[in-house]
């Protein structure tokens, strides 16, 4: 079979059973068909063989299963975290299993987009789907998701966790979900996203969230990826910040099959502050790609980005960070840093920190390093009677903990700390 025919079969498979109902979906479907699946000639997917992962992972002639069984809570719930939650199973929100705060407006996206005019109006206006096949696919084919509106001045006492559960025991699963989060003026909230797969058949998930922060809103956002290798994941989070808003974003990748994260922030107001943090601890054959965009559209804002990675075995990491400073965005301060440690000679990292600046009165910098553990520091620890493995584990833990320290929620931090420690064999 030729490559082209595999491609068109894949396209057909992905778009089967899409109920095209409105202009936006029709346009997005046209874009998806036109762009096709990205190959390695596509600059945005140069080192990210997502199409190959789909070809390998999906059975072309088998269709996708829907429905499924909800696994035990202890398999997917973040232990020790007191939080609200929304639960999605194979792409559909289960309202009866969800527990959401009474102060917020929350409903399944399928319902919200049908009933609320402003949801209809806002959808697709923030996240650009015209230049990315997977964003177009999501816009055309999403089935459900979560709509959350945090009203003005509401400060939530607990974080909201969105659990995406997939049951692929009966066959391969496709889950295309779409969220819209509106943080009202002066509101404060924390949102956590987590995925969990049961079953060994391939799961392809495509999650796109449009998250709007109105004036002076504060949001902590955490993405936690620690799923099985059956999961091929595309994730697109588009944040849109208005004046005086504050964003803390974490993307923590510990396990999975194939992962592509697009994290984009538009600073569309003055005096905004954004912190983007990423930690990827990759092992086995995982391919994880973080593409970030920080788009400074207005003056006097601040952004800071720090992504760190430790790569073992045959893992492959990709980082691409773009900072745009538009002509109007004078007095912008933007910083970006990407640091990587390679632990095996089969692991690879492709990183591309990118600055595009059109304003002159700015302070922007980026830095990027790839290396190993500092031999001298290791020697220092060993000279104090700490054995080599412990010393290594200590140093790796220290490298990763710089990022864990930036997580605000103490309960979540403990949970993450336990996961990271286990991974890095910390037993000191």
């Amino acid at each position, binding site marked *: 079979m030729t490559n082209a025919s595999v491609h068109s079969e894949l396209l057909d498979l992905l778009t089967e059973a899409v109920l095209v109902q409105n202009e936006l979906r029709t346009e997005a479907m046209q874009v998806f068909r036109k762009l096709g699946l990205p190959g390695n000639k596509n600059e945005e997917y140069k080192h990210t063989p997502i199409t190959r992962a789909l070809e390998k992972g999906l059975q072309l002639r088998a269709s996708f299963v829907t429905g499924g069984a909800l696994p035990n809570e202890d398999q997917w719930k973040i232990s020790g975290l007191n939080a609200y939650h929304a639960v999605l199973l194979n792409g559909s929100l289960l309202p009866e299993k969800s527990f959401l705060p009474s102060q917020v407006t929350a409903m399944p996206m399928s319902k919200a987009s049908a009933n609320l005019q402003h949801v209809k109006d806002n959808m697709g206006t923030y996240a650009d789907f015209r230049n990315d096949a997977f964003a177009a696919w999501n816009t055309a084919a999403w089935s459900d998701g979560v709509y959350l509106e945090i009203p003005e001045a509401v400060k939530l006492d607990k974080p909201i966790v969105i659990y995406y559960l997939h049951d692929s025991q009966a066959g391969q699963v496709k889950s295309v979900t779409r969220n819209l989060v509106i943080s009202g003026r002066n509101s404060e909230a924390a949102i956590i996203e987590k995925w969990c797969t049961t079953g060994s058949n391939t799961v392809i998930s495509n999650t796109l969230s449009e998250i709007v922060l109105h004036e002076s809103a504060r949001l902590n956002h955490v993405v936690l990826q620690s799923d099985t290798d059956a999961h091929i994941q595309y994730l697109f989070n588009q944040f849109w910040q208005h004046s005086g808003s504050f964003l803390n974003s974490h993307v923590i990748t510990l396990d999975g099959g194939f992962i592509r994260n697009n994290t984009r922030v538009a600073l569309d107001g003055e005096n905004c502050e954004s912190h983007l943090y990423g930690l990827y601890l990759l092992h086995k054959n995982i391919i994880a790609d973080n593409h970030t965009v920080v788009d400074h559209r207005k003056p006097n804002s601040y952004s800071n980005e720090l992504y760190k990675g430790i790569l073992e075995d045959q893992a492959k990491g990709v980082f691409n960070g773009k900072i745009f400073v538009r002509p109007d965005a004078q007095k912008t301060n933007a910083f970006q840093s990407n640091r990587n440690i390679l632990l095996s000679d089969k692991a690879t990292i492709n990183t591309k*920190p990118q600055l595009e600046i059109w304003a*002159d009165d700015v*302070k922007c910098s980026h830095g*990027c390093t790839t290396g190993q553990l500092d031999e001298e520091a290791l020697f220092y620890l060993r000279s104090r009677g700490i054995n080599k493995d412990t010393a290594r584990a200590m140093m790796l833990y220290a490298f990763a903990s710089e990022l864990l320290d930036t997580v605000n929620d103490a309960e979540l931090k403990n949970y993450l700390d336990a996961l990271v420690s286990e991974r890095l064999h910390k037993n000191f």
Partner: protein
Amino acid sequence: MSKDNQILEEFTSREYEHGWTSDIEMESAPKGLNEDIIRFISAKKNEPDWLLEWRLKAYRQWTKMVEPKWPNVTYPEINYQDIIYYAAPKQKATPKSLEDVDPELLKTFERLGISLTEQKRLTGVAVDAVLDSVSVATTFKEKLAELGIIFCSFSEAVREHPELVKKYLGSVVPMNDNYFAALNSAVFSDGSFCYIPKGVRCPMELSTYFRINAANTGQFERTLIVADEGSYVSYLEGCTAPQRDENQLHAAVVEIYAMKDAHVKYSTVQNWYPGDKEGKGGIYNFVTKRALCAGENSKVSWTQVETGSAITWKYPSCILKGDNSSGEFYSVAVTNNYQQADTGTKMIHIGRNTKSRIVSKGISAGHSQNSYRGQVHVLKRAENARNFSQCDSLLMGNTCGAHTFPYIDVENNSARVEHEATTSKIGEDQIFYCLQRGIDEESAVALIVNGYAKEVLNQLPMEFAVEAQKLLALTLEGSVG
């Protein structure tokens, strides 16, 4: 602010000083490109059959290639059939010595400040002067020959040293490497050839000076430097062109082949006509430069000061194949008015313990766009590879842009790769400080820019450094924000 802008404008509005043309009788090929033109060029130069075959092969490959669109530059479609691919000053016979060279030609180069008369030994630089398509004179040839150094025009090398040319031509930049390299391989007209024998340290700077004179022509020269075991050479390249309203294409290829323990230093001061204030005219400088550190402990360093050209698009690269070899890249790229530059380097680490260092300083003013694009690639077997990159951008005014596209690909866990970049402007406080000490604004800008670019300028040979410093000040005359 408005006052700053005013100074900025005055400073940037300085005219191009090498914009004159000389009236030299020329002979040229008809416009357009096809196999006959290539045969014509080849016949003009009395080339052997193998070279003609090589050119034709390159041409056939070129016709199958498409012009790359990925650089961060925009320009109208180039009509490759509207270019004259060969233009040469008419000469009755091959000049035996400098006395036989057309005095008008010598005057042209004298006006550029390049002395082709060997009496001026003080300068101590051997020059190969290339006007449009051909090399007009090479100085100090005999003196260099005593040491076994071959330094001559490319056509002469093809005649006198075919075995060397045949062996190394295309060994670093294959004919089908990219669109413009293929075009160059098909139509290259002349250039310089240099061979440094085993263990010889070249006693003087070797230099090529390129001048485009004729209208509607493209310049396609090719430079090949072969440094044998343990040799050293420092090579300079300079370029200017007259002021014309249409854009002219310059697609050159530079190949450097460094053997065991060889050290090559290649410096460029590029001052092609950048176009006028409205961005009309100017040279498209699409150049492929690459060095192969083939032997152990070999070292190549590229230094470039880019001030001219409407569009600069080049990435002097090092392939670090030999163990312990090292590559360096120092660059200052200045863009003003409507100039566009997409420049940077590639460091490909293949051998063990290879080292590379990149220092790139971009300065943009006016409506220009300045991009750094670089790749550091550490391959699997490159144990202990080390790279340090720094790319800084300086913005003057709020209508220009500075962009950074570094690609870092690491496949070996013992590699240490560092990259850092900053973008900033000349601060009002820095200018205020200078003013306070009685330094006027214009000198303050020159001072700050020179300080900013010093790390790179220090790498240039002395004669060049002075010229480059002056050039920087001129290009930016009037630019503070």
